[in-house]
């Protein structure tokens, strides 16, 4: 962290800006006051959903870099639902939107899983391709059938939907900030991912497949099925991130920039970083996402304060992640080695001094 800050400071100096002013602006923009904190949390929300979902896939031994596509398909599914039944009361429509979003993401993720399990297609390849396909489907829909009728009338033809039914707006949380229900959902779902992975039989199977597919097969598990399931869970989480990005957005509509990043703000990729940052543990992904979201928000403030390109801030974020993840890995490796040595050490004296339990066990029970 410190090293990243130092390198960043040097970069700022080269660009002729005062690093101290810059960092002060960054910290203040991210954490200064309720409003900024809330903005950081909002920025963190999709990262958390994606990131917690990613941990499920990673723990099953597959790499899901299809978050972008799954977010988009989740957003499309939920948008279609809300367009179809705009008048369903809010207390039903909001959960339904999340459900459809999760479904869309699960379908999109499940495809990558099925391709891997049953056709042997590398999941990195398939998820990237599915990302591209999803973006193009989105662009196609928004330039065609889903385009806001108002835009067509005015002839401005901005590729986004109409303002979606207010019944699907994610309720704003009390407290006077912009925080909405999506933040709560994200935290709850991260906890759900933790429960899934570590408290359920399904989770045990997923982790077993991830760590050692051979032993899992011997134990009677279907590794192929587990891979598909992991992708579906992971996709569902991304799909829900898509829902929060549509119905929690200020425009309350599905939009695209016509390019490759659409409305997601690269959450599908940044979420992976948040997950790695959180040590691939769903609960640790919560603070990791918040920190990462805060960096993104603070970056904007820093840009305004010292007039450096935002790209530098992004580079800085990257540096922080590289250093932190790197040091975590190193520490984990040290910890493992120490544990092994201690275990070996424990065993040898036990063999010589303590009466051998093996001897006692030979007596027939």
């Amino acid at each position, binding site marked *: 962290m410190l090293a990243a800050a130092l390198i960043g400071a040097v970069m700022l100096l080269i660009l002729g800006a005062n690093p101290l002013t810059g960092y002060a602006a960054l910290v203040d923009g991210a954490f200064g006051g309720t409003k900024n904190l809330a903005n950081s949390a909002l920025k963190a929300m999709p990262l958390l959903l994606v990131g917690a979902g990613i941990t499920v896939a990673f723990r099953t031994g597959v790499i899901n870099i299809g978050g972008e596509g799954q977010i988009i398909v989740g957003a499309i599914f939920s948008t279609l639902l809300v367009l179809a039944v705009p008048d369903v009361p809010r207390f039903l429509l909001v959960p339904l939107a999340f459900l459809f979003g999760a479904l869309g993401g699960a379908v999109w993720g499940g495809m990558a899983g099925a391709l891997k399990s049953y056709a042997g297609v590398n999941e990195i390849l398939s998820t990237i391709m599915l990302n591209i396909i999803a973006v193009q489907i989105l662009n196609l829909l928004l330039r065609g059938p889903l385009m806001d009728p108002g835009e067509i009338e005015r002839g401005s033809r901005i590729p986004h939907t109409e303002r979606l039914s207010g019944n699907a707006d994610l309720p704003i949380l009390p407290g006077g900030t912009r925080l909405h229900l999506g933040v709560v959902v994200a935290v709850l779902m991260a906890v759900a991912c933790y429960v899934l992975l570590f408290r359920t039989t399904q989770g045990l199977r997923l982790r077993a497949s991830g760590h*050692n597919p051979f032993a899992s097969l011997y134990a009677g598990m279907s590794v192929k099925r587990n891979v598909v399931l992991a992708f579906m869970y992971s996709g569902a989480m991304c799909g829900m991130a898509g829902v929060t990005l549509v119905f929690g957005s200020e425009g309350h509509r599905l939009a695209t920039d016509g390019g490759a990043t659409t409305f997601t703000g690269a959450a599908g990729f940044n979420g992976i970083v948040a997950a790695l940052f959180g040590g691939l543990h769903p609960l640790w992904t919560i603070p990791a996402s918040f920190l990462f979201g805060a960096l993104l928000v603070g970056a904007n403030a820093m840009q305004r304060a010292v007039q450096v390109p935002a790209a530098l801030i992004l580079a800085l974020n990257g540096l922080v992640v590289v250093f932190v993840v790197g040091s975590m890995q190193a520490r984990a490796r040290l910890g493992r080695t120490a544990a092994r040595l201690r275990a070996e050490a424990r065993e040898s004296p036990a063999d010589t001094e303590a009466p051998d339990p093996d001897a006692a066990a030979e007596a027939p029970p």
Partner: protein
Amino acid sequence: MAPTTAGDLLLEMEGITKRFPGVVANEAVDFDVRRGEVHTLLGENGAGKSTLMKILYGLYHADEGEVRLSGKPVTINSPSDAIDRGIGMIHQHFMLVPTLTVAENVALGLPPIRRIRQDLGPVRERISELSDAYGLQVDPDAYIWQLAVGERQRVEIMKAIYRDVSLLILDEPTSVLTPAEVDDLFVTLRQMTDGGRGLVFISHKLHEVMALSDRITVLRGGRVTGRTMPSETSREQLAHMMVGREVQLAPTRLESKAAEARLKVKDLNVLGDRGTPAVTDFDLEVRSGEVVGIAGVSGNGQRELAEALAGLRPVVSGEVVMNGVETTDRTPKEIRRLGVSYIPEERMRDGAIGEFSVAENLILTDHDRPPISRRGLLDFKQIEDGCSDLVRRFTVKTPTLDTPTANLSGGNIQKLVIARELSGEPELLIASQPTRGVDIGAAEYIHTVLMDQRAGGTAILLISEDLDEVIGLSDRIAVMFEGRIMGTLDQEEATVQRLGLLMAGVSE
């Protein structure tokens, strides 16, 4: 046998002490090797043999003591230092790249032939020459992943011979070999010592130690507990020095009545990884209360047979009936539900998940059934109770149930796998190499457990390359050669010699 003048000292290690946080792994250990001799380091897992050798090989640094090579004090800082000084080491876990061929593996790390593209032609030729000279059967063009463990071992030895080492450390080299292969290995090793090389042989197999060694040093708890020679000692004495107590070397077999057939295999055909027949027209029957041993040289279809029975490898033709149910097209899970358990050959690959805790590994096969699972959730209270019970009953030595399994010793991991597989009171147990690479105490215990199961009416198919084990435990012994049964002997008529002939493919 071996030249014994002090001037022939190849290696001297004097007063070696190595401490790890909380433990002394080696304490004032003296050890030396002369030219042309095999000096055995004997001891249980954790006795300090590996630490001592890792110091010699530059993987660890001694806290105290001196290492001399040919009389000159040396400091060995890394394995490449050791290799430069003519020290070779064959590790218990092979250091081979599975996706490369034998020739490529041998060439790895050698000074490159100066070209952009490595020309392996000379390497292949030299391998063939050495193959003939040392009686080491290896196909230079085979990929490592296609080879059975015994064959991989030969590649490791080939690597050492190819590099022309003067001092070779063999860490448990026979833990993966059959007696016939061990005999071959010993011939090879003798050829190496006749050429003036010195060998350090690390083992806990007593009869092999007796057969091969010129001198024996026994370690226990990091200290030397005995120095002797085969002519002056016995297996029992060695075991006593190793373990520190009396050890029963041969399992007790009680009379047991074989009853109804639990496993029937008829005309079974299975393909190997390379798509060639691995198991051919195989017939077998195992009844309850009976142990049927499958002996054979590694790589003669035993692994493929075990995998086919487990439902992990497709059956080309033939039938397998377990507990009265045809299982050739059943999934591993369905087969397990018929009361079938497995002790797989490679415990860290197939038997347990290293990163998982002891408890998680113990519930691996039963995690989705009550009482462990309730409505899809794991019942941690039940898991803790059940697992502490299993750990106690099967004497798995682990600090806690949450300890990562990879931190346990090989013997304890094997006990863990056995505990899990026997916890469901199986009707049929398929045990592959159940004591491979585990120390004497654990092997003795595992044999007792298997005999208890037999007495309790379990049908046991014991696939093992350890002939003493097969003869000691089995009621009948079938010998596999090139995927077929060469012959079946009753326990009373089975001797190492007769089995050895069948294993070599000579029918009676």
